Structure formats: structure tokens, C-alpha cells
């Protein structure tokens, strides 16, 4: 067993874990944060994307123990008391999901993309950056629209939205 201490969505999270425990297993099975999904479990589909120290990572391909001392943000950590995160709202407004399975990973990837490349995102950039996130329903068009709109909305909200990171 290995002692693991990290901060998840702003709260301390500690456990004695089997070293094999993946970050996604820790989040889902130990913390019951089931918004992060396991799709392929082979780091291809992106349903498990969370932020680790401000970077989007695939939580099925990171050991929980590696995250000791890290700040982790999951989809549950994006919304606040005032309501949905602008990127979540944009997915709703633009019908950026159908079954919704890929959506948590899409949104975490999209927020990371805005942090890295800014608020004005063209379609080509968004499509390239979605390389590691698969959606089997939508054909991506509305996801791309949602991300462009969500990025604009994040610009309007200003830096307050990035406090969670």
C-alpha cells in the first residue's frame, strides 16, 4: 500500500492505496466522483480527461500515486454555486452532446485548450486539439461550435473562472 495525498476540486483527498490504483479509479471508486468516465481504458478516447496541476491528462493512464501533492480538477469541480461553468453552459446551449458519455472529457479538454491557446479559437485549432477525444454520437460539429462559444463566454467571465485551477 502507498499513502496518497492530493487536492481534488480544492479539497484535500488522502488514502492508503494499492500502488496499481489509477487516478481515474481513485476519483471514481474512492472519492465517488463518477463524472469522470472510463471509455476505452487505453488512453485513446479521452472520456477520462481531468486536470492535473492545470494540465489536461488522461486519468486512466496516470497512477494515483504519481499525483501525490498535485492539484486535480474534475468535471465536478468546474461549476460553482452560481451555476454551470461557461464551457458547460456552451455545450448545453449548442447541443454539444447526445448520449453525454464523452462530454466530461470534452469539456475538461476544452477548458485546458482555452487556458493554453486563449479565448479566440478557430475551427481548425479546435478540431486538431480534439485529437485525443472521441465522440461516437455527434459527428463533432456541435462540440466544435460549443467550444468556440464556451471560449468566448470564458473571456467575458474573466479570470474569476480560472480560480478553480
Amino acid at each position, binding site marked *: 500500500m502507498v499513502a496518497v495525498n492530493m487536492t481534488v476540486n480544492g479539497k484535500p483527498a488522502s488514502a492508503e492505496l494499492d*500502488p496499481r490504483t489509477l487516478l481515474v479509479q481513485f476519483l471514481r471508486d474512492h472519492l465517488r466522483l463518477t463524472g469522470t468516465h472510463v471509455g476505452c481504458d487505453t*488512453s485513446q478516447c479521452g472520456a477520462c480527461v481531468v486536470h492535473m496541476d492545470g494540465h489536461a491528462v488522461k486519468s486512466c*493512464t496516470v497512477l494515483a500515486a504519481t499525483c501525490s*501533492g498535485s492539484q486535480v480538477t474534475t468535471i465536478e469541480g468546474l461549476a460553482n454555486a452560481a451555476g454551470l461553468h461557461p464551457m458547460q453552459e456552451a455545450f448545453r446551449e449548442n447541443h454539444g452532446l447526445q448520449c453525454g458519455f464523452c462530454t466530461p472529457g470534452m469539456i475538461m*479538454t476544452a477548458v*485546458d*485548450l482555452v487556458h493554453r491557446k486563449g479565448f479566440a479559437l478557430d475551427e481548425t485549432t479546435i478540431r486538431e486539439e480534439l*485529437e485525443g477525444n472521441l465522440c461516437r454520437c455527434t459527428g463533432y460539429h456541435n462540440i466544435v461550435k460549443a467550444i468556440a462559444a464556451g471560449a468566448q463566454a470564458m473571456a467575458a467571465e474573466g479570470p474569476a473562472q480560472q480560480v478553480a485551477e
Partner: protein
Amino acid sequence: MYAFDYHRPTTARQAAGLLGKDEDVRLLAGGQSLLPMMKLRLVQAGDLVDLNAVDELRGIARSPRSLTIGAMTRHAEVADSPDVAEAIPALAAMASTIGDPAVRAMGTLGGSIANNDPAADYPSACLALGATIVTNKRKIEADDFFKGLFETALEPGELVVKVSFPVPAKAGYAKFRHPASRFALVGVFVAKRSADIRVAVTGAGANGVFRWLEAEEALKARFIVKSLDGLVASTDGLNSDIHADAEYRAHLIAVMAKRAVQQATA
């Protein structure tokens, strides 16, 4: 995954100590290849030494003639580094095409070359640029480092500390991706450093990365795309599988080599 004992050193010295000489001990870098292989039980480690808390293995340093990158430096850091973009823009561009954004946030230079996947990008960059791999014990020239499929010159107890890339006059990288896996079916890195011209091919060789010597000779006359006209890579030693047969890969080598030279001379 099979069970393992987990270790989290904070210095390279501690990591080397934990590594010892036991072949049952594995190093965990970014984990983007090793963890999937462990999940499939293709790899078993009695002890796993996690390098993610070893800060001294990270970082990019630039001198007039070389660029030195720590083994635990992430692909995204190399892709976004102004120093890399200025000294060896082809290397930054190459790093920006590895995997996807989330993979690049974790994957590392040291992990990539120590794993030596036959379709990985970094081995071709190291070989073409004439890099020197610095371990905790010695310096190894890239020509002597890559030994075959998933095989390197690293000995038990040896870990990659950093890689030093001489700054080339010109360099370029072009790859043809497998449409599903996005790995390189064929990737070609070319570099020109005064009279030394190197063409390194990844993805194609049954024995991993290799230099295409005929193309190097042809480019020595003039380092332009036209010098490669009519040159065909041999199918000897190339992979043939359901994704591409050896003839197709040989064809792609010539096409990617031209594109890489075009980028280098643009």
C-alpha cells in the same frame, strides 16, 4: 496490472539507487507507453520507481551550439519552449505532433527514447540530429543508443538524465500517420550540420529507427528536395503488416524524406 512495489524518489541519485541492477525494477516516466503495457500485462515490474517527483531531471537549457533537454521534460514543454523553437524549430514541431494534447502533457523525452518504440518520433530526432544521451553513468551517442525493437544501449542500473542536441543549420521532420492509431507509419527526420547530413527513419524499420544512408549521400551534393528525385528506399528490413506492406513503407520513406527536406529548406 500485476502488483508492484512503488517508490517515489526526489533525486536522480535516489532513483539510480532504487533502480539497482535488478532487471525486475522499472522506471516510470510519463507512463504513456509503460502504463498501457502494464495494464495489458505485457510488462511486469516487481518494483516501480516513479520519476515524476525528480525535478532535477526536467528542464531545457540552451547554449550557442547545443540544446540540452532533461529526461523528464514533457513533450508539451518541448513543443511550447521558445528556446527549442529558436534553436531547433523542427524538434519543437515534432514534439507538437506526438500523441494528443493530454498525452503530450505527461509523456517525456527520456521515456520515449528509453522505450524505443519502433514507431516513436523522438528516436528519429536523436539519430538525425546526432544527439548525445547522457545517463547517470556515461554519455552515449545516438548512433550507439538505439539497438532494435524496444532495445537500447542502457544497461541495468542506468537511467537517462538528459539529452544534448547539437544545433543544426537546418532540420525538418515529416511523418505519415496511421489514420487510427496516429502513430507514424513512416516518419523521417533530416538534419544538416555543416557537412554532416543525416536522414533518420522511424516507423518503417523492422528493427526500429535507422539512417537512410543513400539519401544522406544524395543530399551531400546539394541539400535540396531535388537531390532526392528518383531515389527509392530499399524494402530490405522494412516492416510489412496489415497497415502497410514493405513496398508502401519504402515509397513513403522517399516521400516523407522530401517533405522533411522541404521543411528544412523553407
